[in-house]
């Protein structure tokens, strides 16, 4: 089954590549487009294993890809869908997902509606994070866009209202407001973290609503934006025995409700000639009510985290781009000592991107990480991949090649 899935994913990703172009065709007088992207990476770290890969021995388990089809049915109505699949360490595990599938009706340029499964507009890169060709980096700043936790905010099944409002000499403002059911991934970091703590998740569901606004300023190339998301979650499962557990009631049912989980984000992007600067600050406040038949009352968990990154990239030539970013993740939780390796992950990164073709790039990237975050924070470091414990510093080389058509 796994082999079949892998072959299918590879075929879907590479088919347009073999054609060396996007694939267009006409059916019932309508023009359809098929696009795809795929990437393969290699990661090698000195000590800690990262993103559930066996990076300390060098790992090629870093593959992903997507393929989409879309058409414009009328001047105002378009439909499309995309399938995405990945195998990054144990993340994704070659289980294809419907990434997005929706109808989009644009009444006016300042007002449109999307309905279906829609990528969530949150911060600079949330909705585009999977297509690595769109960025300079082999890995996006993991403080804000952790590969392992992508599913918790990546898309919602519901709807968006969106549009762009001209401000004349002040540029324009584009907005997206949304509401819908969250997507969860049982092959993602949240489930692995819970399982490692001896509280595997049987069921997870929740809603999300939020707004994203972007000001395309009158300064050419400068965009400033902000996002807010209100997330709810209803999770249940059962305690199991676990070697790393600090607390366990094997066999006891538990339920965990997010009341609430807020994400706020402020960001900017500036493209000036051959330079590209970007930055984002994000804060997440989480409160969970945990109930169980094993104890009376409600256990309230309060945690928050702040993340920030700043990046600069310079396009040396058509072939070569150089870049660097500094990414910082701070995790606050009452039981977690401050200013230790478990309260933060700082990542300094330098990247060389080589564009061999318009559709094919290779990235070579060095990560110099300080800290590994908390047992409750996930963000790359998991007990299951680091059974001997975590060291405070991690240096890692990532080489990633990607295709997109």
């Amino acid at each position: 089954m796994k082999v079949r899935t892998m072959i299918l994913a590879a075929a879907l990703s590479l088919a347009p590549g073999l054609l060396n172009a996007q694939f267009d065709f006409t059916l019932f007088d309508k023009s359809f487009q098929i696009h795809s992207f795929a990437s393969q990476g290699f990661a090698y770290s000195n000590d800690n294993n990262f993103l559930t890969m066996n990076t300390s021995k060098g790992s090629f388990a870093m593959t992903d890809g997507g393929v989409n089809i879309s058409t414009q049915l009328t001047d105002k109505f378009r439909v499309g869908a995309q399938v995405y699949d990945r195998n990054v360490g144990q993340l994704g595990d070659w289980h294809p997902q419907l990434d997005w599938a929706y109808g989009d009706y644009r009444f006016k340029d300042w007002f449109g509606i999307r309905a279906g499964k829609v990528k969530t507009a949150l911060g600079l890169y949330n909705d585009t994070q999977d297509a690595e060709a769109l960025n300079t980096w082999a890995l996006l700043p993991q403080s804000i866009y952790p590969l392992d936790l992508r599913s918790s905010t990546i898309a919602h099944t519901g709807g968006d209202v969106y549009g762009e409002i001209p401000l004349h000499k002040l540029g324009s403002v584009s907005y997206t407001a949304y509401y819908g059911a969250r997507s969860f991934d049982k092959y993602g970091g949240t489930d692995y973290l819970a399982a490692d703590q001896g509280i595997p998740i049987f069921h997870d569901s929740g809603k999300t609503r939020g707004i994203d606004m972007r000001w395309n300023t009158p300064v050419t190339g400068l965009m400033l934006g902000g996002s807010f998301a209100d997330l709810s979650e209803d999770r249940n499962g059962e305690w199991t025995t676990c070697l790393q557990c600090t607390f366990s009631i094997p066999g006891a049912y538990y339920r965990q409700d997010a009341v609430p989980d807020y994400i706020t984000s402020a960001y900017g992007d500036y493209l000036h000639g051959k330079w590209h600067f970007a930055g984002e600050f994000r804060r997440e406040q989480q409160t969970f009510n945990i109930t169980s038949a094993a104890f009376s009352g409600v256990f309230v968990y309060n945690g928050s985290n702040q993340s920030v990154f700043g990046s600069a990239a310079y396009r040396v030539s058509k072939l070569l781009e150089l870049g660097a970013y500094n990414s910082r993740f701070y995790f606050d939780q009452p039981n977690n000592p401050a200013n230790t390796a478990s309260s933060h992950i700082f990542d300094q990164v330098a990247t060389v991107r080589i564009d061999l073709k318009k559709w094919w790039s290779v990235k070579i990237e060095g990560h110099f990480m300080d800290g590994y975050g908390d047992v409750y924070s996930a963000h790359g470091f998991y007990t299951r991949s680091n059974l001997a414990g975590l060291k405070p510093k991690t240096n890692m080389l990532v080489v990633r090649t990607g295709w997109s058509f």
Partner: protein
Amino acid sequence: MKNSLKFLTAFVGIGIGSTVCAADVKIIANESVGATSISADELKGVFLATKTSLSDGSHVVPVLEKGGPAHEAFLKDYLGKTDSALETYYRSLVFTGKASMPKTLGADAEVVAYVAKTKGAIGYVGADAATEGVKTLEMK
């Protein structure tokens, strides 16, 4: 000395001439487009897929050139993006389902022919290009 000055004048003249020529593009549209003029903001919106109609209500679809002086000048003067940045921008729309990849054609003549036969099409060509069968939009 005189010869040097003549050479310098000629060199600068060529430079200025090239700049003027590169920056001089015509905006063309299919005859179905009602508007006779377009603002720089509208043009940017159309080619960045945030705008699908002009002020007169005409639905428009952008057409790009693959490269060349008209393309470079258009990107610089109206979109403020490099070719690779524009490509990345379009891909970000395509991979989130927000827009289709616009039609890209090789040369002025191809763009003119495509715009002439495609309802709502809007494109750009070099100032010297023959534009039979299409309307030229004035910049507001």
